[in-house]
């Protein structure tokens, strides 16, 4: 990668030479791509560095990029974006970590205790495993315990899912898989010729 420009990137390169992948500024916000295995160390570093002091853990959010067609920072299917802020300086930084199916991200609960809930949410809705945040094995967080699948994955249909009864048996589907209204498509074009039967 090129020379680190921001103070955050320089601190990471100086202390954890193998952790930083890339550095970009989008719409005025700093995004740093971090190696998956080193995320907890990077968070600890940014938190304790006396010049930076990223002491406020805002949240972390998962994104499924499996249907993404544009350019990207990372190559893996999922991205988890950590949102940190320094209350003293007001600076904000977004750390990105990539993960593919079946790859686990180290938890950062020991660095920021508040990471427990958002990590569990990402696991529940996207199926990304957080190594070390294993207080509740096999347990769903926002979804019912007998729910099958991860709804925020792109292949999960919007509507059309079977009703799940207790003990894992499946009932009838609630409604048809959502399709665009006549004359409207999910790609944002109008005119009946563009209507796709399955949506996106």
């Amino acid at each position, binding site marked *: 990668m090129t020379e680190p420009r921001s103070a955050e990137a320089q601190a990471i390169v100086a202390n954890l030479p193998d952790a930083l992948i890339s550095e970009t500024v989008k*719409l005025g916000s700093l*995004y740093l791509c971090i190696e998956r295995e080193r995320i907890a160390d990077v968070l600890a570093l940014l938190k304790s560095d006396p010049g930076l002091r990223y002491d406020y853990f805002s949240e972390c959010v998962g994104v499924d990029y499996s249907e993404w067609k544009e350019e990207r920072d990372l190559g893996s299917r999922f991205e988890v974006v950590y*949102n940190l802020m320094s209350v003293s300086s007001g600076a904000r930084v977004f750390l990105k970590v990539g993960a593919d199916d079946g790859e686990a991200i180290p938890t950062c609960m020991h660095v920021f205790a508040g990471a427990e809930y958002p990590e569990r949410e990402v696991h529940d809705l996207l199926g990304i495993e957080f190594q070390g945040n294993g207080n509740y094995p096999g347990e769903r967080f926002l979804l019912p315990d007998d729910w099958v699948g991860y709804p925020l994955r792109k292949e*999960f249909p919007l509507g059309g899912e079977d009703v799940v009864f207790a003990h894992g048996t499946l009932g009838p589907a609630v409604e048809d898989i959502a399709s665009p209204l006549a004359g409207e498509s999910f790609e*944002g074009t109008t005119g009946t010729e563009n209507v796709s039967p399955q949506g996106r």
Partner: protein
Amino acid sequence: MAKSPFMPTTGTSFERTGENSMIVNMGPQHPSTHGVLRLVCELDGETVVKCRCVIGYLHTGMEKEAESQTYQKCVVMTDRMDYLNANGNNLAHALAVEKLLGCEIPIRGQYLRVILAELSRIASHCVWLGTHALDLGAMTPFFYIMQQRELILDMFEMFSGVRMMPSWIVPGGLRGDVPDGFEVKVRAFLRDFPGEIEVVEGLLVENPIWRERTQDVGIMTGAQALELGCSGPIARASGVAWDLRKSHPYSGYENFEFQIPVGKTGDVYDRFLVRIAEMRESAKIVEQAMDQLPSGPVNTLDRKVAPPDRSELDTSMEAVIHHFKLWTEGYRTPVGEAYAGIEGSKGELGFYIVSDGTNRPYRWHERPSSFMNLKALEVLAEGRLIADIIAIIGSIDIVLGEIDR
């Protein structure tokens, strides 16, 4: 998993730590859990050994749903997240989309947004104060303060026709200007509100029962609050002088003078004082915004984002095309990602939107303030009496619609 015939702990793997402890299940249908929150508590006598929150009873998959809706249609889902601070949610969503679009809102639009957001904050704090006091046995404040909230909801009804979910702040501006008579109503409210809040405050501040129940209960330090991701009045009650309206001003907040109330001990009582003081500051902001409110348009002049005025449709073909395109397709945001955070009534309220260049978000996520604040309950309840849990839940001020989304 602790199994017992009369202590249902289904839905959570809860490890009992002591031998003589008892597991008590609070909620989801419990009056003082403020919605469908379920708490599984391990008790040693009356002392809480461990407390776990079980959530998800209101999960409706809004973030998934948004991926198939245009940005305009996403607005109505934001109201239903934190339904007590609907205008704040609308504003956060609008700011995130506008950041992607790079569009500017005229001053009148910005100030009207501030007025609506601050009125929402007062209304939200009114509900908090009423229910929090009610939980701890004080019934009178509820009746006084809910009356004030009703007045604010009347104003919301006046401009949007809806009391709780106005969906009035949209990307590109507002759905419309406020009607005639709105200012008179706001001014009348602002005139009486400080007196009304003093009445309610007087019922509680020096009240020995209230102080007994709230002082030195649920103490959290500032560093602890930030580490847990707590923001807003909770962090400020713990001595963290941080408010996004000051540190990252948006929508013209830099033009208003107001204070950030900060607590010292970080207990339930301090959170109560901070929120009361915040209501007064919000009223001051509304007054200033009303005084400085310029005339002019409320929406961006970019016709690709905000619809043309109705009067233009009769004479301009271009306006008709813009109108048609906006209400059939919406607008396309450039490829990219944006996060915009505001100071909601419960803390930092932000939207993280990933756009793939279509008219719908590729990923649409709310940074839920109550969800992050809720973690504090598990930490604060440990070692306290079970009655203190009620005080702590009330002081955290959660809305389950936002937690579960």
